[in-house]
């Protein structure tokens, strides 16, 4: 409590500012998130067939996610630090539970039925993995030594493989990148990274061997979508038509024809960017990317301002994961990356990723608003 009062003394110039700081909300970040979510409603209304039900359901989810974000923002980062290992182990145990007893949904085991609601442990692991790595590395002098690097790598690879086995390629990719980001921010030497890159590349054939048929199919389709226009290439071709026909200015809100005629599958979820690009054109796309870039910049600023190694590494990694979401989703929709199930952050319809994303922004706000203010 002492830190809070002191922070107020230093920065409270207005009553509103004091109130918001009391709420532990970071204003620029909050505004960025709010704008993106508002935009999401606009697009969802159009992509979801102009149904109010879609909007109310999404509003409920966003509401829950914002509450969670504010709750997390109130927790002192030291608490995250203290419980990192426990949370990580708990998450991994849940993942194992899913594999053993999970419900089979859409051919993949991802859900754990807790009676009242269904829970996807792989979402939680997206946050607990970077927490664990940051906790582990922050105990040593940085940059990490080879031994610490290997232990950290194991801690990343284990949950990644568990999720890949579900199989959920998109999420396992996000978990791996969030862990790797911590290592990168911790100052892992470039030589190490290049060596790891070479090893991973040489392991690609092995990975190929372990992939499911549908995953192989997606990669092959990505390499040559026209080979199978009725099947797997269908998504990509239709999505490119939708985006390209949008032009510079777009067809206007509610003006998309491709998604309306059901040419474009998954238009409210993973492929929502195509609807957006069709309706709002290149100018709209630039606007959205700018908004995302602003959020990322603010988050990186928070990371730089953070006062201990753990917070810094965690903030950096969560920010980077947010970007990976954006890049992988848009890259897939515009046909420069293979189709993996990653939603467009804060915009795609669906609750699980929304909650995880806003939870990580909550942690970022917590890191930023619990600083002990030093004279500048």
């Amino acid at each position: 409590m002492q830190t809070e009062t002191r922070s107020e003394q230093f920065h409270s110039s207005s009553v509103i500012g004091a109130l918001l700081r009391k709420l532990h909300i970071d204003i620029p970040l909050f505004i960025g998130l709010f704008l993106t979510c508002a935009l999401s409603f606009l697009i969802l209304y159009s992509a979801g067939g102009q149904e109010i039900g879609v909007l109310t359901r999404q509003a409920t989810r966003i509401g829950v996610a914002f509450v969670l974000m504010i709750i997390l923002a109130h927790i002192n980062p030291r608490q995250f630090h203290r419980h990192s290992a426990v949370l990580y182990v708990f998450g991994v145990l849940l993942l194992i539970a899913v594999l053993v007893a999970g419900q089979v949904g859409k051919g993949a085991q991802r859900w754990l039925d807790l009676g009242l609601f269904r829970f996807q442990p792989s979402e939680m692991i997206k946050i607990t993995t970077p927490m664990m790595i940051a906790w582990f590395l922050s105990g040593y002098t940085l940059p990490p030594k080879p031994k610490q690097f290997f232990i950290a790598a194991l801690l990343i690879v284990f949950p990644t493989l568990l999720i890949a086995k579900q199989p959920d390629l998109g999420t396992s990719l996000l978990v791996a990148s969030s862990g790797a980001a911590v290592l990168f921010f911790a100052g892992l030497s470039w030589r190490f990274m290049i060596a790891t890159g070479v090893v991973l590349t040489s392991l690609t054939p092995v990975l190929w061997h372990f992939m499911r048929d549908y995953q192989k199919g997606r990669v092959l389709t990505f390499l040559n979508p026209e080979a199978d226009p009725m099947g797997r290439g269908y998504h990509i071709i239709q999505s490119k038509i939708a985006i390209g026909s949008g032009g510079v200015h777009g067809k206007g809100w509610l003006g998309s024809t491709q998604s309306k005629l059901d040419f474009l599958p998954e238009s409210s979820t993973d492929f929502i960017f195509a609807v957006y690009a069709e309706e709002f054109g290149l100018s709209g796309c630039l606007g959205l990317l700018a908004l995302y870039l602003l959020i990322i910049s603010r988050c990186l600023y928070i990371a730089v301002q953070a006062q201990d190694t753990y917070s810094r590494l965690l903030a950096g990694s969560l920010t980077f994961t947010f970007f990976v979401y954006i890049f992988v989703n848009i890259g897939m929709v515009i046909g420069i990356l293979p189709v993996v199930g990653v939603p467009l952050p804060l915009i795609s319809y669906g609750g699980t990723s929304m909650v995880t994303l806003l939870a990580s922004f909550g942690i970022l706000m917590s890191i930023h608003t619990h600083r002990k203010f030093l004279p500048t």
Partner: protein
Amino acid sequence: MVRIYAIKDPLAENRIFLSRVVAVFTLVVILIIGLIIRLMYLQIVGHEHYSTMAKSNRIKILPLPPTRGIVYDRQGRILAENLPSYSLELIPEQIKDLDDTLLRLQQLLDISDEKIEQFLKQKKRGKRFSSIPLLLRMSDEAVAKFSVVRPYYPGVDVHARLVRHYPYDFLTSHVVGYVGRINEKELKSLPVADYRGTHHVGKIGIEKTYEAQLHGQAGYSEIETNAQGRAVKTVFSDDPVPGANIFLTLDIDLQETAYDALDGYNGAVVAIEVKTGDVLVFTSRPGFDPNPFVYGISIKAYKALQQSVDQPLFNRALRGQYPPGSTIKPFMGLAGLEYNVTDFRHKLFCPGYYQLPKLKHKYRDWKKWGHGSVDLEKAIIQSCDVYFYDLARTLGIDRIHEFLQKFGFGERTGIDLVGEKAGLLPSKAWKRKYRRQPWYPGETLITGIGQGFTQVTPLQLARATATLANRGKVVTPHLADRIVGSNYTTAEPLEPEVQIELKTKNLEDIVSAMVNVVHGARGTARRLKVGVDYLIAGKTGTAQVFTVKQEEQYNEKELDIKLRDHALFMAFAPANDPQIAVAVIVENGGHGGSVAAPIAGKIMKQYLTGVKEVVVAD
């Protein structure tokens, strides 16, 4: 929590971190620029191209559904084919006033309300711009009637489609099965790309088992259309790959003989070629006509089938579970010989009943006054129950279970049909687990004569018979002989050979006893030997449907027909070089020897001599 904030050189770490943040920020900016370049390429450079493609009705990708493979019997006769048929289809998007159109069509073509309802249901599921059938199998007259007034019905059209047809309807309903409209559940599990344009999917039988092979791969064509959506020209097309044809091991002539022979009864017949495991006959009577299921059976007709007391939709050969009755005795006898607890010539006195030591309960023989002195051979020939009560008691349930399991009792045979039942072969462990009760000695006795908990499917019984005929080499029944695709042929893969360890002498003793069931003067199936010049080994069985109380008499004539015993018969021939094994179960047929055995006899005769018995004078 000892290591918190163990930072050695905060300034250096800060510097590293800052440089990494700069690196990440640079990367983010570069990648976002990459995305922007790609977007510019799509939305500025490619705009013209993609706009043309998007012009809603200009270029359409039309799926070309593949032709479903044909199912043949072992002689190459067609069991499932595709016949051209006309259907009336509507595209809701192109119809201004759907209710009015439907009403006018209803008056014009005399369409039932039920069909309209079905159509509306399908419309809800489908997409507005896809073509939804209203009438299937239109008569030529109806086609002509509609063609005249076609211009007044925009969005309505007659389509020629191939519709699945089963020429042998009742005979093959439980083997070949049928296709029906794809339902929502199936839609989720089917590969989307290959089923665009396909409306039907295998529901049961071979049609379901081999759905993937029979269906084939969809092709597509890109067609240019005018504003009304009519095709102007084909820009590009990729032909579909038709489904593979399947040749079954089934012999439709034998199948017909079996089905006809069951006339007047409910029951099942399965015949297996001993050396190969080919299923020659797979009959469940009553069958049903599968053809209405293809174009949508009416609710009334379906209910009638479902609620019929004869249960025509029930596949008795695959899923019917019956007590094996005395047909279990040859296997029991073989178990006794193999475990050395009896000798083929060991004699026992049968007074007509059997009692466990110190217990009053009398386990009766079917012959009230008993068989007198019996050895194993006589016990099989005359089907003496007392002998097998005693044998079962000496063997004990565990050894019975262990031995019978080898012949496949209590397990699925693995035939290529979906929904097979496993039957039941009881054991102490089974009873403890599922009934939560201990095993009682009396239950061992009745297991010995094929009553009690034991249940077998006709298919299992046929398989066990074939395995016995094959001198212990386990036979795995299968229906598909070979699958012939447009560019491949796959034959039924050879199963690994499993040989049950049996002493030749024991086996031949049992087979000779079974031969005498048919050819012996007092055999229970002695009527079968008339007019055959090969040796048949068989065993009759009678399975109790209800239990006769201790001091009561079983009186067949007075009994309600549904409570009458099931008649069973299993046989193979020729006994010395077995070619065919048959199992017959006739529900409420009474005695195995009089009702079930002649059916098996006919099939074996027809298979071995090639002559079909035309009329059997009674």
